[in-house]
């Protein structure tokens, strides 16, 4: 047995790392590997003769030599990876996949229609039909048949646009003259649907509505979805359940609703439905005015006079109806500060959807 060669392991390590860094291609790296880690490399020779050392040094030299070998190995790996990466882009056919992805060039849905479609889908799932109906209406359908006879003070709150030109100023319903206006709500379709269809009725009516109003929360044109269900034995509890289902489908399963009694001429009893604030989960924040609740919609049991106007016998049938402001939901849900921005149609807003 020959004496173990005297090797300066520290110097060897420095020399090997420098050689790895100096290599410019895979062949260079391979040469360095053979030179420093090959069968005849000084390190390997040292390791193969460690047994001949005095027992007290065997352990120390063996561990140190193995550590140096591992370091060189790691440097070779890293060098190879770096070379490969450089090499991929260097090739003539290489394509830089770190480049940003190309947008697919699709268009973006208007936020109001996004909400409208969502609402339609929720109610289609509950078996509701979708109807639309005219935006220019008669006073008869817009007010009178909804238990709002001429002179009713609640008409003032609707602030209607009236049609002016001679041809369409007045129309006649069953021989009675009636004024023509832009519908102030989607509720006239309650009557049109009941005139057309026999109960059981389940219908929603999404569409445009108009009132003379313009500020941060009002636009002269806005969108509503009307809901109408007419059947035997319909209850206020059914209305509550329907609205709760809607609120949870729309705003998240953890939402709760609250019914507040209120007054509408076309329903009795009437309620406003609030949904627990989806920003603060009901704890109170700026969005909900620190109340924990957001006003969502108005609803109620269809007034017997309205059923009669629709040709439905209130002695046999009952119904519930509700009206949702779509733009307000879009405003709340997507955090649009000014309602009017929805109809400015700045594509920077629309492209966020």
């Amino acid at each position, binding site marked *: 047995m020959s004496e173990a060669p005297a090797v300066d392991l520290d110097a060897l390590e420095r020399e090997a790392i420098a050689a790895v860094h100096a290599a410019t291609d895979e062949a260079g790296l391979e040469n360095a590997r053979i030179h420093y880690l090959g069968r005849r490399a000084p390190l390997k020779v040292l390791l193969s003769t460690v047994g001949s050392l005095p027992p007290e040094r065997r352990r120390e030299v063996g561990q140190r030599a193995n550590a140096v070998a591992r370091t060189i190995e790691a440097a070779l790996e890293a060098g190879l990876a770096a070379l490969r990466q450089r090499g991929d882009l260097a090739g003539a056919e290489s394509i830089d996949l770190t480049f940003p992805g190309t947008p697919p060039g699709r*268009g*973006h*849905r208007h936020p109001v229609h996004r909400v409208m*479609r969502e609402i*339609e889908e929720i109610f*289609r799932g509950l*078996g509701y*039909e979708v109807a*639309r109906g*005219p*935006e*220019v209406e*008669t006073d008869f359908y817009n007010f009178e048949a909804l238990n709002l006879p001429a002179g009713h*003070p609640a008409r003032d709150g609707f602030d209607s*646009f*009236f049609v*002016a*030109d001679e*041809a*369409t*100023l007045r129309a*006649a*319903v*069953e021989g009675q003259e009636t004024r*023509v206006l*832009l519908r102030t709500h989607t509720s006239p*379709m309650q009557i049109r*649907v009941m*005139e*057309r269809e026999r109960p059981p009725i*389940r219908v929603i009516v999404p569409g*445009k509505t108009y009132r003379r109003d313009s500020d941060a929360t009002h*636009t002269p*044109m806005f969108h509503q979805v009307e809901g109408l269900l007419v059947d*035997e034995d319909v*209850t*206020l*509890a*059914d209305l*509550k*359940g329907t609205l*709760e*289902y809607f609120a949870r489908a729309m705003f998240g399963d953890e939402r709760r609703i*609250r*019914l*507040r009694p209120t*007054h509408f001429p076309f329903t*009795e*009893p009437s*309620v406003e439905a609030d949904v627990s604030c989806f920003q603060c989960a009901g704890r109170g924040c700026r969005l909900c005015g620190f109340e924990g609740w957001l006003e969502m919609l108005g609803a109620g049991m269809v*007034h*017997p006079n309205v059923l009669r106007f629709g040709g439905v016998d*209130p002695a046999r049938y*009952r119904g519930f109806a509700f009206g949702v402001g779509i733009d307000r939901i879009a405003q709340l849900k997507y955090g649009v500060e000014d309602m009017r921005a*929805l109809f400015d*149609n*700045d*594509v920077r807003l*629309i*492209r966020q959807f």
Partner: protein
Amino acid sequence: MPIRVSLEWLREYVELPEDAERLAEALTLSGSKVDRVIAVGQGWEGVVVARIAELAPVPGSDHLLLARVEHGGASSQVVSGAPNLRVGDLVPLATVGTILPNGMTIKARKMLGAPSEGMLCSPAELGISTEADGIMVLGTGGPTGMPLADLMPPDHLLIVDVTPNRPDELCHLGVARELAAVLGRELRAPDALPEEAGAAALSVEIRDPDLCARYVAREVFGLRVGPSPGWMQRRLRAVGQRPINNVVDAANYVMLELGQPLHAFDRDRLAGRAVLPEAGVPALPGVGAPARLEAAPALEAAPTLKAAPSLIVRRARAGESLACLDGRTRELPEGALLIADPERPQAIAGIIGGAASAVGDATTSVVIESANFLGTSIRATSRRLGLRTEASGRFEKQLAPALAPLGAARLAALLREVAGAGPSSPAVDVHPAPRERAPIRLRVGFVTGVLGEDLGGPARAEAEIRARLERLGFGVDGDAVAPPAMGGAAVETPPAGPTGAAEADGPVLTVTPPPFRLDVGIPEDLVEEVGRLRGYANLPSTLPGRRQPVARVLPPADVEWEARDLALAGGYDEVVGLSFGNPRDPLMGHPPTDRQVLLLNPMTSEQDRMRISLLPGLTRIVERNNDVGNEAVRIFELGRVFWPRDGSAPPDSGPAGASGTPAITGTPDDRFADRRRQDLDLPRERRMLGFAHQVQAATGRKADEQVRDALLATKGVIEDISRSLSGVEPGGTAGAGLRLEVEQERVHGLRPGRSARLWLVRRDAAGAAVGERALFGWLGEVHPEAVRGMDLRAPLVLAEVDFDLLAANLRLPVAESLSRFPAVSRDIAISVPTTRPARDVLRTIRDAGEAILRTVNLFDEYHGSQLPAGRKGLAVHLVYAAPDRTLTGDEVAAAEARILARLGAEVEAEVRAR
């Protein structure tokens, strides 16, 4: 209508728990929404009552004033910018060191060199209202220096938004009654019986009983006008009223207490019955119709006084006017209801009193008016005068006639207490046609049936219904065995549903609404009363469910969404424009027309009609986007346009006026056009699909290329939607079916040479048109002249098509069986004269009638130096296949040769390469 109520005041009528927030919630959840709870007196340490002693301008400022204020024995200088500073007024002064409710700390400082030692506060700064545009004025007389809290003790105010059907609740007693019912407490109504003496001397005549259902008047003598007592001033101030004098304050107080607006005339300034026919004195000149004088009370009743006043309730005549309490003289609209004496108008009924008979410092006797007017009449007059008062706001919601005598009695009693008045005369109560209100028959089962909650079974339900209604003042007579057929004058009760037996519906109650509740008349109203007092928090949540006819469960596919999805996939952003039209906007497609749906009361002159085209709006949207730096805007809209119904649109004016064949017209909305509307003249509403596609480059050859691409991209998305929805194929496609055919021609507002009309044509297998074609829309680059004055950054392509034509002709795609044999494709390159439209080339290829030719794709057009002048190059991709065999090269070559020969013969084509 929101009202302010004070908890301190409410406690006079009902015992209330301390927690104001909890009370607010209880009111909200029973139907009286509380918008805000205000803590009065919080953060008022250091705020004292001060009198403005002197005012001087601050040098160097146009609005700041230096006020010297006195408080107790002290005097301070304060700079204020408030617009309502007046020497002599009592105002709240926040002294140095005060921390106001909004967190502001008051420090001594100098403003423009003027020292300011404190701040005069607005109601908003004191945290009791949102009014911030002036100093809160506390009054004019009285001591100063004491804490503001002495004048306005700590209290809570609730802002209650009372629904319009409940004018009875626009007062403290009304809110107290609600709270008593919700909390199950006893209600203590104020004692309203005044001492009476003498006889009723004054006379009241209602000439227009349609506008005045009841008029109650009382005379009160021997009063002294002066400040009202502290307790009354404090309460009035607490709810935002400024004390004036004891008579006016007492009248306001009763209105805020009972909800009945009152007026007090200075009795000595009202004319009496000077004109007595018996005395043979002729009518006074200037008095219109002579007063009717039946049932005249004896004048001797008050012999020491001037003749008793005579009040007439009548409509205003043309040309009458009244000098009002507020110092303004108003022309009275003809037909407005007024209160007059025999000589002249003295008040506009329910709105404002006249100055001539106003209560002043010298007044010693008054006539109390407590009346009931027709709400719609008060509302109409109030709107025409542009004047809304606390009184008119209540009257227009239609108060109950039953309130009138209560108000008069209560005011008479209060005047004795606060103005030292003697006993009142007995009331003169004119009530021409008192209305009996029929009781309501209410089945217990109806209540539980509508609510969907059984309330613990019929017996417990009955007890609960009875208890809740009685607490609100309803009279309830139980009649458990009432026969179901009991009819008579009773208001109808819906009978049980077809499955419900009469006895299952439980007992029947006979319910009489309280006289002040005009809003309750049918059983449904009573269900609401019971339900809202119970609260809906514990109402079960259920989904309605019964066997449904299948037709209703499977709604038809909604093609609007399908069309939108396709346009989105085509890269167009969706916009929603306003449905209005601007008369100054350029029109594209349609020439201008007078026949439009005009609005009587538009918000602006730019929105004075309904739109007849989407394109002006889309162009404006592009312009607005350019303004904010958005370039190359690509947008679409699916929305309605509006045409007058009568006659037909101008011949050239577009889809709404097109007389298509029955096969390709129709408006889906007609589904809900009712039989009643047969004679209706409602406008025609058409759904249109509009596109605006702006290019990137502004000018030059590059722009021209991009405009071509944009035109064809827009056409492509229209073709795609038309095919997907209605099976419409491009013009020139072989076989029977609907075709989208393009006529390149001048179109209004679009650029000549770059515009076309689009038509839908039904063709049979031989290619012949079936019926008339229908105008579908137009496509083109916007004419620079049309948008002169608009700031568009780059050329714009527009297109608009009639979506209802597609919706009326929906067609499911039909799968064709696919050939198992390979197809052969060939490209041909030809040149044709520049003037030759591509359509002719495609038609010629189709007309060659090669059975094995499957598809033709014209994929390129080029101009350039390699081509002779006057010619352009076209590249066509042809695919050949047969369903039953593999084609041979010879077969294909022969077919192609025949096609090329025909192209040569018919469109002067020359082969360039293969």
